[in-house]
């Protein structure tokens, strides 16, 4: 299993079109969807920096930053 990393995950709400791909396909369940369908970063401590969410975001809305 890949080790979780200390991460900062930023979602640019102006670019996000609420497709749900980040939340639906993150292997670590880092995201949850709010009532309006927009993704929230609720479990950043689980993130392994696998880059599947930012590479699969069709709207360039996700930025991952390794803090430590």
């Amino acid at each position, binding site marked *: 299993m890949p080790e979780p990393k200390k991460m900062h995950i930023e979602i640019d709400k102006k670019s996000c079109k609420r497709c749900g*791909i980040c*939340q639906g*396909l993150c292997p670590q369940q880092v995201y949850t969807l709010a009532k309006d369908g927009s993704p929230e970063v609720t479990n950043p401590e689980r993130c392994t920096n696998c880059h599947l969410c930012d590479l*699969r975001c*069709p709207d*360039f809305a996700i930025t991952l930053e390794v803090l430590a």
Partner: protein
Amino acid sequence: MALSYKDYLEPSQLPHMWCPGCGDGIILRAYTEALAELELAPKDVVTVTGIGCWGKADDYVSTQAFHGTHGRALAFATGIKTANPDLTVVTLMGDGDAVTIGGNHFIHAARRNINLTAIVTNNYNYGMTGGQYSATTPLKSKTTTSPNGVAEPGFDVCFLAEAAGANFVARTTVYHAVALKNLIKEAILHPGFSLVEVISPCPTYFGRFNVHPSPVNMMNWLKDKAVPVQKYREMSAEEQYEHFAVGKIVVKERPDFYTTYQRINGGQVAAEEGDGNGR
């Protein structure tokens, strides 16, 4: 300083016009990531588009760009590459552009083995004009022009390129985003005509009529359909019908058009050298 995919995008033109969950944005990300990892200067890359949902992509990139007519991206790209072989030339097309309207340019670019890269997004229909069937729509699939299911089989884009003579032929999906970026890099580096076919969701039309309108379900559908090429070759015809092969399908070293042209017109072609096809 290391380049980022953002160096290849035009922020003033974003967000793009594509629907929520459309695979086009994932492919544009992979393409710009690949350019950044190859450290190609935006001024040395020409992105060529035609018409369709991909027809807007030339506005979104900061590379050199050329927006041509429907189906003709490869014809313009052929001219650009032949006139200036030092440029990296990449066409971004959908299945309508590449193998339906532009099928003739597609087979001839592969036959000539022009040293450029075609990234063909196959979402099995004409999205931009309202979800009509294209030459890749699978048999019996529903589209706005085949409400009971289309009565024609679709082209296998990779086998078409292989039969026409392409040097590098690969297929993947937007679900496999890391493989996608790596295949685009390899295709750009490989001499001769390179094709990366990307199976991609159009949730708005093909997905809604045939699979599911949800982008997440479309992504999981791609995962279930995709089979590594070796495994695909061992499948029965019935199993193959339900799947498609992903990975590198052709990798060969036939001399590209420009190299052969220079040799012939420089008078340096030895009679025994032939054209690589035993002739």
